[in-house]
């Protein structure tokens, strides 16, 4: 069986889900309300059906002469493990404007991989994926920052990295400068900033672009309480703006505050797509399993 066949087979078979999937109050309710078939609508949406992805595992094998000799002498396993690792399988959801989906799961469950796939970084190997609408991935807010450039120059540099022209950025500069509260420091090189100042600038730049879809992965690091409040306020503004938000996180509090549904992952498989409290309970149950 080829890797794609086996992946498809595993996508057909539901991932081993502890009791929630298929229950009356869980994910199927949404599925009933919304047609899960291929959407032909023009509003912003993200739709995945039986999406799966594998990573090759043999890339990081050691190819040393020593290993080859041991193998030839029969002192070690003759066959390298060439089976690809299934990182995502059976992902099904349909997000529409106003949906704010928290992606939960333990370390290595596939949260970041799924977020990257939504952002268009990884493309699905099997299954179908449709995305309509402008997207801003906030997976790494430091992208494109150059320590030798001033804060102001970095605003333009970042714009170039995400494909915006100078004119596009000019309309945003005032808003960014105001939000990051750096004062005259905005004209000094970023390498002279404290880490909190860099985080403020990066966050202001990254969130200055309005989009239909936001993809966030555990991003609030440095910055004091005042900044955190302002950042949270900005995210709340999106929430009122009928956008689609994906938030990968370990924090139950953040999910309760910002999300209105939850997607639980376990070993790359989608365990549930359900209401917030249900999803958090399920995730905590999974965390207790060995």
């Amino acid at each position, binding site marked *: 069986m080829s890797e794609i066949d086996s992946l498809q087979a595993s996508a057909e078979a539901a991932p081993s889900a502890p009791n929630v999937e298929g229950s009356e109050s869980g994910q199927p309710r949404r599925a009933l309300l919304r047609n899960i078939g291929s959407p032909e609508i023009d509003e912003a949406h993200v739709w995945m059906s039986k999406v799966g992805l594998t990573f090759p595992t043999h890339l990081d094998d050691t190819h040393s002469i020593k290993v080859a000799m041991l193998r030839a002498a029969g002192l070690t396993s003759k066959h390298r493990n060439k089976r690809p690792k299934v990182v995502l399988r059976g992902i099904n959801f349909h997000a529409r404007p106003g949906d704010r989906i928290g992606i939960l799961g333990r370390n290595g469950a596939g949260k970041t991989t799924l977020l990257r796939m939504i952002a268009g970084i990884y493309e699905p190997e099997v299954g179908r994926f449709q995305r309509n609408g402008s997207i801003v991935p906030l997976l790494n807010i430091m992208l494109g920052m150059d320590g030798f450039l001033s804060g102001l120059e970095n605003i333009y*540099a970042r714009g*170039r990295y995400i494909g915006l022209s100078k004119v596009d950025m000019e309309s945003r500069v005032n808003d960014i400068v105001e939000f990051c509260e750096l004062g005259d420091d905005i004209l000094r090189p970023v390498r002279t900033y404290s880490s909190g100042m860099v985080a403020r600038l990066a966050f202001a730049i990254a969130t200055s672009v309005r989009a239909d879809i936001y993809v966030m992965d555990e991003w609030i690091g440095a910055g004091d309480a005042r900044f955190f409040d302002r950042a949270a306020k900005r995210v709340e503004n999106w929430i009122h703006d009928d956008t689609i938000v994906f938030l990968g996180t370990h924090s139950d509090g953040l999910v309760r505050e910002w999300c209105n549904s939850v997607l639980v992952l376990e070993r790359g498989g989608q365990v549930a797509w359900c209401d917030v409290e249900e999803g958090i309970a399920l995730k905590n149950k999974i965390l207790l399993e060995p």
Partner: protein
Amino acid sequence: MTKQALEHRDREDRLYVERVQSGKGQRVAEALADIKWTIRHIPQAIEIAGQELASRYARSILGPLWLVIGTITFIGAFSFLGTFLFKMPWTTYLNYLCAGIVYWQFIQTWLIESASMYPSSQVALHSTRTPTSYIPVTLLLRNLLVLAHGLPIVAVVAALTATQPVLWYMIPFSLLMGLLLLFPIGALLGFLGTRYRDTVPALSTILGFVVYVSPVWWDDSQVKGLGRLIVDLNPVYYLLRVLRDPFLGVMTPLPIWLGAIFTAAVLWGLLAVVFVRFRRMIAIWV
């Protein structure tokens, strides 16, 4: 085409709208959308190339002027040595060497940087949607910016020393032909170098002796007999002929042009196949 990448500005806030649909048999459509995105963002790519070059010379007083100084110093010093070795008039050899060295440095840097272009932009590839074709285009633009510091020297030297009138009108064509040959090689090396990390050391080793067996700094017209095979069987020789001949006032023979066009066609075909087949894997391999 099931996949439509509709990218249009409708409102100030909505920057682009696109529709991604993935599944089997859509690789070609996705590859085309990838290239389309890159072509649309060439202005930004030029700005990024300039910014990268500038940041490389941050805090330097002369900045990219070092590129010019370095080239002039090397060529000036080496041309005296070569004049004694090859018993050519100094001016003739200077012209030959100058065009050869400037172009060779461009070729060598482009090829070696190509082999590591995806791993070195790993952060960008993993944090935002970066089309696979965008990386080689920005890299080529940066190398062209460096070349733009060297070519004026070649032009000045040629204007002052060429024994035959310089074929100025041929220079754009020769440069275009060179790029049509070098871009697919670099882009293919990009895929190879991402999958097999031995590519960079292997390539450095190979290019290290290719510069000696190719007529970059020695004059091929002095090679006769069996040794001539080293020249005639060497693809780099033909590439250098295409690039250098206009500065020497020599019209590149038609067979060389036809061979170059044929080779370019083969390379682009190969690149198209590899690009469609392995484009998706770049984000996973890096």
